[in-house]
């Protein structure tokens, strides 16, 4: 499960304007990287142009999925991921990125910005962090931990049952031992009292 790119765009009246982008192209060969990056930028811009305000969408393209979220204030974000990545986590990521972005960058810069003028460094960090959806998304993490705990508890129950069996075994053995020791004691006492000879 990988994320390939994460970009923030501003959706203008006629076309959309790339504000900032982060790419993770390590899985492509060195010579393809620049063209792939161009392609991703273009796709993101196109998708944002075609999405309405306040909508979320997922577009399937070859074997990649592009998730887009355009807010009501014309700020949009696109993440391009492979087909295994859970879409819910993508949308959570988009929400977070847009929140952060709108807090850090002035709305005045939005319509006219470009990647060189906008100062927003967290995009790379987000992309790196969300490469592993399990750890990044709170809900997925909680669910994974809960499942783990449940498995551990099942194992505990099994070992508890085994312990029960062993305890039963021990009870029987200790009863047997007790009986034998009692017989021993009786024999010893008999020996003492019965024959006073020699």
């Amino acid at each position, binding site marked *: 499960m990988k994320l390939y790119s994460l970009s923030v765009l501003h959706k203008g009246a006629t076309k959309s304007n790339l504000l900032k982008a982060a790419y993770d192209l390590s899985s492509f060969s060195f010579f393809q990287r620049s063209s792939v990056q161009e392609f991703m930028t273009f796709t993101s811009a196109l998708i944002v142009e075609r999405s*309405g*305000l306040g909508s979320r969408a997922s577009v399937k393209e070859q074997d990649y999925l592009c998730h887009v979220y355009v807010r009501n204030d014309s700020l949009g974000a696109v993440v391009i991921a492979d087909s295994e990545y859970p879409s819910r986590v993508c949308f959570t990521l988009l929400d977070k990125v847009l*929140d952060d972005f709108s807090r850090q960058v002035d709305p005045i810069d939005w319509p006219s910005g470009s990647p060189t003028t906008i100062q927003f460094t967290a995009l790379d960090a987000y992309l790196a962090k969300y490469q592993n959806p399990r750890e990044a998304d*709170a*809900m997925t993490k909680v669910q994974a931990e809960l499942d783990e705990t449940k498995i551990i508890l099942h194992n505990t*129950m099994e070992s508890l049952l085994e312990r029960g069996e062993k305890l*039963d075994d021990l009870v029987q053995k200790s009863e047997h031992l007790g009986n034998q020791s009692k017989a*021993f*004691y009786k024999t*010893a006492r008999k020996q003492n009292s019965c024959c006073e000879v020699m």
Partner: protein
Amino acid sequence: MNTRRRHGPRSNEDGVYLGPSLTQPQLLQQAEAPVPTSLPLAPPVDAGRGSCRDRTTEFQSVCRSLQSRQNGIPTSKPALSAVRQRSDFTLFAKRIGRNLSNTFAKLEKLTMLAKRKSLFDDKATEIDELTYIVKQDINSLNKQIAQLQELVRSRGGQNGRHLQTHSNTVVVSLQSKLAAMSNDFKSVLEVRTENLKEQHSRREQFSQAPAHYAPNSAHNFNAGNSLLMQDESKQPGDVSIDMDFRASQQMQLVNEQNSYIQSRADTMQNIETTIVELGSIFQQLAHMVKEQEETVQRIDANVEDTSFNVEAAHTEILKYFQSVSANRWLLIKIFLILIIFFIVFTVFLA
């Protein structure tokens, strides 16, 4: 005997009529008829209530004898109007009491609803309606009790001292019940706001941006469609984008919004179920461990028995050993003495 007069008619030592009983107002209204009828009225209160003796008939005869002893009709009228005033008061008080108990029941239901703590299945509308109804009831009860108090005060001059204190006590008890109920209501509202705050914080914990949920799909896919038509012509040729836009775009947009929110809701519900299951597993674990503790105690007892027995047997054997080893000395001594005697005998006899 005045011992069992809780709901019977009140009278002082001489049996003079002072005031009506709370449970028999209709009876007294029927007793207005100045015609001396000889005990025709069966008391509407069931005589089967075994804890009080029914002395209605005696009371009526006493009334009538008193009335005939006094000036007759002119003074019976003010007495009758006093009776009517008293019965008004009691009717009013009864009505207020009944309303109070109804409102209490509603408040209990509200308490139960407000205590629910799950994130889903929150009956907010019901709770709000019920809150509104209970508030209205409390207000109206307040007004009614104020009216009752006015009534009591206005008729203060005409009644006897005991009657006055009785009315005041009734009003005060109704007021205190109403105060208790409004306190309960306030605490229920506080509990409800706490739960709402908790829910909100839990929701925020699991979804980082709770404000962006509103799906306004109808507006969106129309705009999307029109943009689509415009952009179709402008598509450049060298980049092949395999996107299936036409018919599925509409469905996709609507479904995407709903499915995102739906999937989050499902996940949350999943998490909640899992946590509940975990709780029950822990409980079962605790139960099983407790059961096994009994077994462990049995083992402990058995082993202690064994060790005790072995100790005792060891002691016995030690004793035996000592006796055996001690015995040998005695045996040797005895033999020695015997041999000496034998030698002495043979020496002496030979």
